[in-house]
Each structure stands twice: as C-alpha cells, then as structure tokens.
C-alpha cells in the first residue's frame, strides 16, 4: 500500500513532467524550430541558469506582491462573504454589483491603478487583490447559506442569536468552502500580479518577460513562464496543505459516506 501511494503521488507526476520536457526538446530538434519562435527545453533551462540572479530578484517581487494582494483578498473576501451570507437582503443587494464588478477584465483596471498609485508594486498588489477576492466571497457566502434549517431550529429553540449560530455552525461549516476558494484565489492573484506587471511596473517576472520580449531574448521569456508555473504550483500546494490541515473533517467525512 505504501509503495503504491509513493508510485502514484511521486513517481507518476515526476515521470509525466520529465517526459513532457523531453518531448519538447525532441520536437525542437527534429523540426528545427528557430530559437525566436520556440526555444528548446535545454535553451530555456540554460537561460534560467545564466540569468538566475535577475530572475530570482524579479521572482521575489512577484511573489511578495502576489501574497500581499492575496492576504488583502482573503481578509476582505472573508468579511464580505460573511456579510453576504448573513442575510438574504444583503445578499440580494450586493450580489449583482459583485458579479458586475467581477465581469470587468482586470487588465482594463490596471491603467487606472497606475494613474492613481504610479508605476510600482501597489498596482500589482491591488490587481492581485481585485481579481482574487470574488471566489472567496462567493464560497464563504455559499457555506453560510447551506446551514441546515433544522439545525438552526435546534439552536434557535435554545435562544441562540444569529451571531451564535454563525459562530458555532455557519462559520465552521463554511471553512471547507473558504479554504477551497483559497486555492482558486491564489492562482488568480498570481495572474493579477503578472498582468499588472506587464502593463505598468518596474520590477517583477511580468516586467522581465516584457523586457526580454522587446529585446528578442525569447529563451528568457520562456524561462519566465517556467518560473511562473513553478511558483504557481508552490503557492497552490501551500494553500492545499493549509486546507487539509484545517478542514480534514470535511474530507474524512466524505470519504466514509
């Protein structure tokens, strides 16, 4: 059983990833694809190593702006989600505005943010926040709204206030939804930061890729993409781990039912 787990969880994804890179390398060699269209995997890894310092430097900026935007989105999304889930009137009032706001492509907002806050990290943080709070709000509100009416009766018959019911039942019940939404939100926040960096920033992987592109240093562009993918996986794994840690009951409960 242990061995089987190891095969599935470690060997299988590793094999698949390596195979993908090998196929990429082979395709580039066999079809003789020019470096300016698609550099081979080896070229990209070469660029990654050669420019490791600026890449690490810019990655760090992207990472912390993403996390800052994500942190704001988490706090704001949680509070707004509780407000929206609290009462149907609040839900009905806020929801259309939220959906409308979420429909605006955030790329279109970046110039406005740059106008307000100037070129720098703030627009990136703001974009990450704006793009990622919506799923958190929706999920927390859904979790609160799905409290069983009978359980509410049990507690209300004891004289429980709305706040009591929220604290004892609503909020714990919505935690799996909340942590589930964090996985979506962190990837979105990442997208937001990079989008903002490619429009108006002086640092970050997005900016690095933009500069490399205008200088026709295509391997660096792809190295940037690789770094982005890698960071995305790390951030996702982190939130998934937190989710497992805090709401293990939800998973175990389902597994045995």
């Amino acid at each position, binding site marked *: 059983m242990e061995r089987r787990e190891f095969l599935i969880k470690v060997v299988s994804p590793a094999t698949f990833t390596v195979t993908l890179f090998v196929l990429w390398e082979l395709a580039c060699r066999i079809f003789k694809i020019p470096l300016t269209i698609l550099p081979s995997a080896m070229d990209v890894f070469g660029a990654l190593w050669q420019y490791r310092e600026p890449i690490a430097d810019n990655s760090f900026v992207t990472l912390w702006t993403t996390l800052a935007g994500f942190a704001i989105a988490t706090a704001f999304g949680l509070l707004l989600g509780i407000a929206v889930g609290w009462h149907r009137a609040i839900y009905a009032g806020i929801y259309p505005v939220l959906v409308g706001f979420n429909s605006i492509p955030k790329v279109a907002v970046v110039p406005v943010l740059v106008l307000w806050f100037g070129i720098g990290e703030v627009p990136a943080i703001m974009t990450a926040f704006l793009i990622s709070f919506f799923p958190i709000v929706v999920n927390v509100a859904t979790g609160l709204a799905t409290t069983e009416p009978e359980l509410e009766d049990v*507690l209300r*018959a004891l004289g429980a206030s709305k706040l009591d019911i929220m604290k*004892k039942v609503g909020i*714990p019940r919505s935690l799996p939804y909340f942590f589930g939404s964090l996985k979506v939100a962190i990837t979105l926040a990442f997208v937001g930061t990079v989008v903002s960096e490619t429009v108006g920033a002086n640092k970050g992987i997005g900016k690095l890729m933009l500069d490399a592109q205008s200088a026709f240093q295509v391997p660096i562009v792809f190295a940037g993409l690789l770094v982005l993918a890698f960071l995305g996986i790390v951030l996702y794994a982190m939130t998934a781990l937190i989710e497992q840690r805090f709401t293990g009951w939800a998973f175990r409960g389902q597994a045995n039912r």
Partner: protein
Amino acid sequence: MSALVHLDRISMVYGRGVSSVRAIEEVSLDIAKGEFIAVVGPSGCGKSSLMRLISGLHPPLAGILTVEGNPVKGPLKSVGMAFQNSNLLPWRNALENVLLPLEIVEPHRSRIRTERKQYREKAIKLLEAVGLAGFTEKHPWELSGGMQQRTSICRALIHEPDILMLDEPFGALDAFTREELWCTLRDLQAARGVTVMLVTHDLREAVFLADTVYVMSSRPGRIVKRCEVKIARPRDLEVTYTPEFQEIVHELRHLIGRGGEGAH
C-alpha cells in the same frame, strides 16, 4: 394534572396573503408535566408545524398557547429538539456535539469555560446512559445511524429541558435499531421524568412509547382523536405483540385511513 403546555384553538399558517398555507386548524390539547405524548398523522398534516409552534419558533395565527401558564412569545429555551436527520456537526466528536447546547443556553453558557470538566462528565454520563460508552470521542462519520441518533437525543437532553421534542427521530433507521432506540428513549424518559412530544408516522412506535396519542388529519391539520394508551409501564417490547396493543394500533390506523379521505 397540571398542564405544562396548553393549546386552545390554535391555528397556524405559513407565508402571507394568497400564497399562505394553512398548516394547523383549531388545535386544542394539553400536555401534563412528565407526560409522553405522540402526534401521528398522514405526511404533511402539520405535525412538525405543531412542534415548531410549541417551541416558540413560529407564532400562531390565532388561539392561545401557554407553557407553564405563560404565553409563548419567542423561542422557549426549555426545549430540546431532535429530528430524523441527526444534524450533528461533523467537525465535533460525539461529546463535543452533546455539549453544544450548553455553549448557548444560560446559565451554562457563562459557566462552561470554567466548569468544562463537570459538564464533560455530565455529557459522558448521558452518552453512557444511551449505550455510547467508549464512543464519546468518535466523530459523527465514525458512528452508525443509530448511534448518531442517540447522540442527537443526548444533545437535546443535556441542558435538562422541560420538554423534549422529537420529530420522527427514528424514521431513517432500520427496524431492529429503531426498536432498540424505543427502549432507550423509554428508559431515559422513565429515569428523568421529562415531558416528551414525539411526532411520528409509525403507529406502533407511538403506542409503545406514549401515554397519549393524538391523531391529526391531513392538511390543514386538526386533531381528530385523542387516545390514552392504558398499557401499564414499564412496557416491554413483547407488549407490541399483545392483542390489546394491536387493537389500539389498528384503531388508530383506521382513523388515519379515514382522515385521508380514502386516498390510499
């Protein structure tokens, strides 16, 4: 017999205006302290509504409702409720689930932090009394349906309510587990002298457990029959096979059949 709960020509509706549904019509009944009543009737006859009404969760449209002589104006607090679905919180173990009401209802609410140990012992005793010794630390998904239901009943009883309200609590269980739980409930009620209102569609269950069985008609619910079960206590499961018992069940079944206007 002093009436703990008194209903005088109570009517109740859900909703307002044209879309309102008449759930209960002119129901009058008294529940004495320590009495075990059962309410039976076809589905959708307002049995559960009656329970919500007496708990103070839903106001009546007309009529007088008093508990211990006082008109009911809001949630009673002296009520414990359990439903067909055990509604246990999956992130709490059995013991913590049972302790939940104590975290809400006064005076326990302000004491539970400092006297958690005593309260835990009390909850453990209660769980042991329903046959869950050794399962107190288990989470709901580790318990069988019958065990979950036992826990749910403990949760309804932990704050020592005056009235225990059970809405088809054994409806989702298999026949053997159900009979086992009948006996658990019978013993609990005998030991604690709590007043019980049991809503059910199982006539054998009603007759076996209750002192008084009320038969309701289909919607809008009215009480069509009040039947005192004069079988001596303590009742053994064997009693359900006696002609006396069968006769009462048969009579009640007949009443419900007629109440349904021969729908079946």
